[in-house]
């Protein structure tokens, strides 16, 4: 049709301000035809183009349609495009296409350009006309029709160019139209609400060969990922035809979206596509939903330098690592970003650093520093975060009080911790977590009345939905020697708790029964607990997560030990033997080794010190030389935790074995005094 037309058109240097029409080397000002179009004289406009530019009727209409489209006269454009029988044109093109049996390979590639299999220019004209028709319909809000037209562009391309077009031969304008149509089609289906069609259009765009440039391919991949993440429509898995053996095929929306986003980031990193900042946000969102923030961190680490400032990068990485439980990695990053030469006043980083440090006694002092800086910087718009800073300060000081250098230091830290938490509650009177922490702090200082008030307030505020609240109240009551009330609370908590989560409550209940000299019922409770723990061990696959109890699982060994202790006090010696058999690990040497390992890992661990001290002391009856070691370990433990009743008791035993009866008496007295305000399990187990 138009094969003879091969003039290079881009070389004209005409005045750019007025639009021009151009064909066959002839030019025409648009104003001449615009006037006719505005009067509605399509025929006249068309004939003046045919004469002025020596075009045929279809070409003239297509050109006029484009002119109208560019002028924003969409209805007019549509009328013009509808005047062309585009389907007939397509069929003609198809007829001229050679049979598909002859694939174009490198060997038998056509030698001469005139053997070009399909008249690309003619195809380009027709396809552009259909595409602009689709665009006009889209802009007029007729998206369903627009989608139909746009789809016919792609269908035609597939039919006409069955064996593909080699890169060297492709007409740039044809390629442009095709790329546009590929990108527009899924958007049109999406807008018209035809979601299943949109999904197949996206997949068709990405899985077929359209010779798209990297940027438009990246845009389509991103749009599809966003669609998969947020449309709320579940896409069926990709068709079997598109699956290649051995390659990964996503099973659902989230998987497909994450795959596409990861591929995009890889493209950015290798410079294959232009960086799009929204992609990293999308993948952060998607992976956070799956709790895979360590994968986000990996993606962030691979992002090319220069995209983020280093402080931005450190802070985002710290959030990712801390969400993934990798506290020390997060703290290290925050130290860098909060360095005085970086951004020492970044409030979110300060608060996060303080929070992470508050979980670790050895970091608590550092954390208190961050918290203080946070409080200082919570000003203006951020003033509402002052309470958070104070709360973190209180928590860090409270933790710091566990590794003090002296008694004086401890009480100073404890009272400062309380002061900070009290200050925080003025800002956040409605924050139940804060109420709980304040309660625990009071309990640690044996202000049991205040502690029980806060424990009750916490249960009220959370509607009893948080297990640790119930446990805390029961512990406070047990410390007040109100065992039967503590048991009532524990029973209430058991009612509110699903079976799987009842372990720690049952253990508490068993201990309360013992405290009330009711060993038979305690045995029953222990037996029930044992059954639960064993069932859990069998049925908990990796995919079952315990919502509230993750940190506080009941150890089976612990239950056997409790039972053994009970039976021995009941003089059921046979049963004790059974328990001991199970207890296996109660052998002296392995037990000692385990506790020593514990000590090596955490040299300030009071329970380990007391346990080793106790073991050595028991043994000391026959083997005197270990007694001084036991004595120094126990004294050490008491320096850290002077309220540790067991440590006092065993220190008394050491003195007794050594024959220092007065010292022994003092220790036993301290132990017995503490027993009167000792909770049944340590308060620090719940915070």
């Amino acid at each position: 049709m138009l094969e003879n037309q091969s003039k290079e058109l881009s070389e004209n240097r005409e005045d750019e301000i007025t639009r021009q029409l151009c064909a066959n080397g002839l030019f025409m000002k648009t104003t001449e035809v615009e006037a006719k179009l505005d009067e509605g004289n399509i025929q006249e406009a068309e004939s003046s183009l045919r004469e002025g530019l020596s075009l045929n009727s279809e070409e003239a209409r297509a050109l006029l349609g484009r002119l109208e489209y560019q002028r924003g006269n969409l209805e007019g454009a549509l009328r013009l495009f509808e005047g062309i029988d585009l389907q007939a044109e397509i069929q003609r093109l198809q007829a001229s296409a050679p049979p598909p049996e002859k694939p174009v390979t490198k060997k038998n590639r056509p030698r001469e350009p005139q053997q070009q299999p399909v008249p690309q220019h003619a195809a380009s004209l027709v396809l552009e006309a259909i595409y602009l028709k689709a665009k006009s319909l889209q802009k007029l809000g007729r998206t369903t029709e627009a989608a139909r037209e746009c789809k016919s562009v792609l269908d035609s391309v597939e039919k006409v160019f069955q064996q593909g077009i080699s890169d060297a031969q492709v007409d740039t304008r044809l390629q442009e139209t095709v790329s546009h149509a590929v990108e527009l089609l899924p958007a049109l289906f999406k807008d018209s609400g035809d979601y299943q069609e949109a999904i197949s259009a996206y997949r068709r765009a990405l899985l077929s060969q359209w010779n798209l440039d990297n940027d438009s391919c990246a845009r389509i991949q991103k749009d599809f990922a966003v669609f998969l993440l947020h449309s709320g429509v579940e896409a069926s898995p990709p068709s079997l035809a598109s699956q290649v053996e051995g390659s990964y095929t996503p099973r659902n929306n989230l998987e497909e979206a994450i795959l596409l986003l990861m591929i995009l980031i890889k493209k950015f990193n290798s410079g294959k596509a232009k960086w799009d900042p929204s992609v990293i946000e999308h993948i952060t969102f998607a992976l956070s939903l799956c709790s895979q923030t360590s994968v986000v961190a990996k993606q962030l680490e691979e992002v090319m330098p220069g995209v983020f400032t280093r402080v931005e990068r450190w802070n985002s990485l710290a959030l990712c690592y801390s969400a993934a439980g990798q506290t020390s990695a997060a703290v290290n990053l925050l130290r860098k970003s909060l360095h005085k030469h970086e951004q020492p006043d970044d409030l979110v980083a300060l608060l996060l650093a303080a929070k992470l440090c508050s979980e670790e006694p050895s970091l608590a002092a550092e954390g208190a520093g961050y918290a203080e800086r946070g409080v200082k910087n919570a000003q203006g718009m951020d003033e509402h975060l002052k309470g958070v800073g104070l709360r973190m300060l209180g928590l860090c000081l409270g933790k710091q009080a566990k590794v003090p250098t002296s008694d004086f230091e401890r009480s100073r830290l404890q009272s400062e911790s309380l002061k900070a938490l009290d200050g925080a509650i003025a800002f956040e009177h409605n924050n139940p977590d804060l109420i709980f922490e304040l309660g625990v702090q009071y309990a640690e200082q044996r202000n049991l009345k205040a502690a029980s008030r806060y424990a009750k307030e916490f249960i009220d505020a959370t509607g009893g939905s948080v297990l640790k609240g119930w446990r805390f109240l029961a512990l406070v009551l047990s410390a007040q020697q109100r065992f039967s009330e503590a048991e009532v609370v524990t029973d209430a908590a058991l009612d509110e708790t699903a079976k799987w989560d009842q372990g720690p409550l049952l253990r508490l209940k068993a201990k309360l029964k013992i405290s009330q000299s009711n060993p038979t019922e305690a045995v029953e409770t222990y037996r029930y607990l044992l059954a639960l723990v064993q069932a859990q061990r069998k049925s908990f696959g990796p995919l079952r997560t315990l919502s509230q109890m993750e940190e506080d699982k009941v150890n089976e060994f612990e239950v056997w030990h409790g039972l053994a202790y009970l039976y021995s006090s009941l003089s059921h010696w046979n049963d004790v033997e059974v328990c001991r058999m199970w207890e296996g690990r109660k052998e002296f040497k392995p037990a000692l080794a385990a506790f020593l390992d514990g000590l090596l890992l955490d040299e300030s661990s009071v329970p380990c010190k007391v346990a080793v001290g106790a073991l050595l002391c028991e043994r000391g009856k026959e083997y005197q030389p270990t007694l001084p070691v036991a004595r120094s370990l126990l004294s050490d433990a008491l320096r850290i935790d002077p309220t540790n009743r067991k440590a006092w008791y065993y220190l008394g035993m050491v003195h007794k074995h050594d024959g220092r009866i007065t010292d022994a008496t003092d220790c036993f007295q301290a132990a017995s005094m503490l027993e009167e305000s000792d909770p049944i399990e340590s308060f620090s187990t719940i915070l």
Partner: protein
Amino acid sequence: MSESASSHDSPPAPTIAGDSQTTAANESDTNAKCQTAIQSLSSIVTTTTIPSTISLLLDDSAVSAAISSLLQRPDSGSGDNNLCRWLYDTFQSTEPSLHLLVLRFVPLIAGLYLSRVPLRQPQAGFEAVLLALYAHETTSRADQAVTVNIPDLSHPSIYHESKGPAKNNSTCLNIAVVSSTLDPHGTIRESTRRARIVGVALELYYSEIARMPRESKLDFCGACEKWAGQNGETRAGVVPEEEESVAVARSEKDGGRIPLPWELVQPMMRILGHCLMGMKVEDREVKEAASKACQSLYLRALHDINPKAILAAGSLLRLREMALDPKNQIDHTEISNDNVLSV
């Protein structure tokens, strides 16, 4: 439900009859169920006329508004509440279109329920509805967790090729749990599982979100803001009264702030993501409500110093900001606006 659970059970059944397998008996059964639901609703909602078919009822904003205002009454969640009973019965009918009708009110029910918990009101009615949703999900997931594979790009996929040698299959994928296995709860209402039960109801709501009306989404955004409790950042200087009405005063002042564990935050974020980026029709009101809710949740995440929630909510906020930036509103499918038009 979305994700892998869907590979086990059938895809969401189409609401419109047209399924050749549907027998006449089934159809009349469906009709009977729908008619029963409509009839019993008309005895509860008296302020407006109830349409005669379910498809009309789903889109009837007057009826929805009437039901919403009934739900918002102070005593609406009690065990003997007619509306709660109707919602419960309607959901039990296993009829997909009736399910949608109930799910539409999940934002309102969940919002009111959780915010009213500290007031110690009887809420057996709300609980029954929420537990019905939970039980439904438990059955349809058949003891399976909802998981996704985190792809490893060193293996080829349908969307990319990999230069690395094809290793021993793609079995070393990293599996992430999106929603853990559900334990059956029957009739027990354990308060420590409350967040999980409501979270699962929200997951179910999300699975049908594309079919939910905009008012329902607006209700949800409102609930999020209430739960986050960060709207009153400007502190009132008034000293709380020490009266009997402390509980009520607290609820009004704090606007229903609740503990927000991840099992709630996660489905909340997904729903907000949809409201911001996945709506069929551009809806400014919903988008603005969702972005306000997101802002509140972000502030709340900062107050809780919850890194995962900070990441998720922060991403949504930044994406919203980028979308509003005119620089990012280029239409890449537009043709070049040349001054010389050629054939």
